[in-house]
């Protein structure tokens, strides 16, 4: 989607402000929102691409006026509701102080595996590789000239607007990966090669850019055409 999250190349956002000795979290609720997101993700009901897509659906004005973990909270609430685990009404009721029907230690729904403290280290150590062990032919090889497709999918995509329609060159082939555009929409992994594509800064931004500089983006076969 052509969402507000796709920020590359925008003006007017102000200077980047670095905080000296910045803590990992600034508030207790940020700690909890972070951990709740990871723990809920470990339930196995949705994938990482769906999580990103959920955050992208935050209304643009709200996205720009809220902080990072508020984006995460928005995405988490959306996914929990979509999967029937927690509804917005239940959150509102809890906020209103209504605790009727509260059952502690209720058993989770069938087929849901709850993350336990003893499993956290292993979960993080394993990670979640998006690489797919399938022998799929690459459409391009390093050095090939390519053009990023001028497409505007209304669902999730990892093709930033600022490279669409622009010419570049394949820098390296990273191998076969899950394709986020379908994976985020529940339409399968559609495994294909993902490449670093080098775009000259002047190809993207015109004569104002340095003639030496370049931007590299990681792009899948379905984002590219030969040039």
């Amino acid at each position: 989607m052509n969402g507000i999250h796709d920020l590359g190349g925008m003006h007017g956002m102000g200077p980047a402000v670095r905080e000296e000795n910045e803590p990992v979290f600034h508030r207790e609720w940020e700690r909890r929102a972070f951990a709740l997101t990871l723990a809920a993700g470990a339930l196995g009901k949705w994938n990482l691409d769906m999580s990103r897509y959920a955050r992208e659906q935050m209304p643009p004005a709200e996205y720009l006026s809220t902080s990072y973990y508020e984006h995460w909270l928005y995405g988490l609430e959306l996914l929990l509701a979509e999967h029937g685990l927690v509804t917005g009404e239940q959150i509102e009721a809890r906020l209103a102080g209504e605790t009727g029907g509260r059952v502690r230690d209720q058993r989770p729904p069938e087929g849901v595996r709850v993350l336990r403290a003893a499993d956290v280290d292993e979960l993080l150590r394993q990670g979640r590789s998006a690489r797919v062990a399938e022998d799929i032919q690459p459409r391009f090889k390093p050095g090939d000239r390519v053009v990023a497709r001028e497409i505007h999918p209304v669902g999730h995509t990892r093709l930033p607007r600022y490279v669409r329609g622009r010419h570049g060159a394949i820098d390296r082939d990273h191998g076969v990966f899950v394709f986020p555009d379908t994976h985020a929409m529940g339409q399968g992994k559609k495994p294909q090669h993902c490449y670093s594509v080098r775009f000259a800064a002047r190809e993207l931004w015109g004569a104002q850019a340095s003639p030496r500089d370049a931007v590299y983006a990681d792009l899948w076969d379905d984002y590219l055409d030969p040039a």
Partner: protein
Amino acid sequence: MSDPHHEHDETHGREHGAPLGDTELRVKALESLLFDKGLVDPAALDRLIDTYETKVGPRNGARVVARAWADPAYKKRLLEDATAAIAELGFAGRGGEHMVVLENTPKVHNLVVCTLCSCYPWPVLGLPPVWYKSAPYRSRAVIDPRGVLREFGLDLAEDVEIRVWDSTAELRYLVLPERPAGTEAMSEEELAALVTRDAMIGVARVEAPPR
């Protein structure tokens, strides 16, 4: 409120404190609901938080960089297969499944961003700082890298090529900064102490130690 982030971040757009209280309550409500439904284990939440507050952070990446500076064979492996070389030091997993290391030289300077969200190499750098996840850096790193670097105190000569790496897929990038002059006699541990998070993102250089 004495929250430095909210005091400094002019783009944040919220009055200090006011609606944040709502967010705080909302997170509490959500956590209590998830707990009541048996969907989260509070001990697991504590473990997740503790991991990223106390165990995983840029000191890990600094060890990788120091090893690469001290051991040419390691550096070669790191540039060829970063995921495997980083795993040699025990760092792997969530947010760093597929690593790429980018070497800075006197003529090439690498800078890492995620314009679409906040992709960042967790096993070696921990969780990203607020500026990395915020609109100013994400919007400008690709269109005006030299201006952004100047704001971070780094003024690069025109003949230095800047390569900006937008983390749009599941590859995660770590910059291998240039080893500063005057560090030839230093141990790997001493070298690691010089390496900063910012240098491994590419918004700073590693400074030589004061003589």
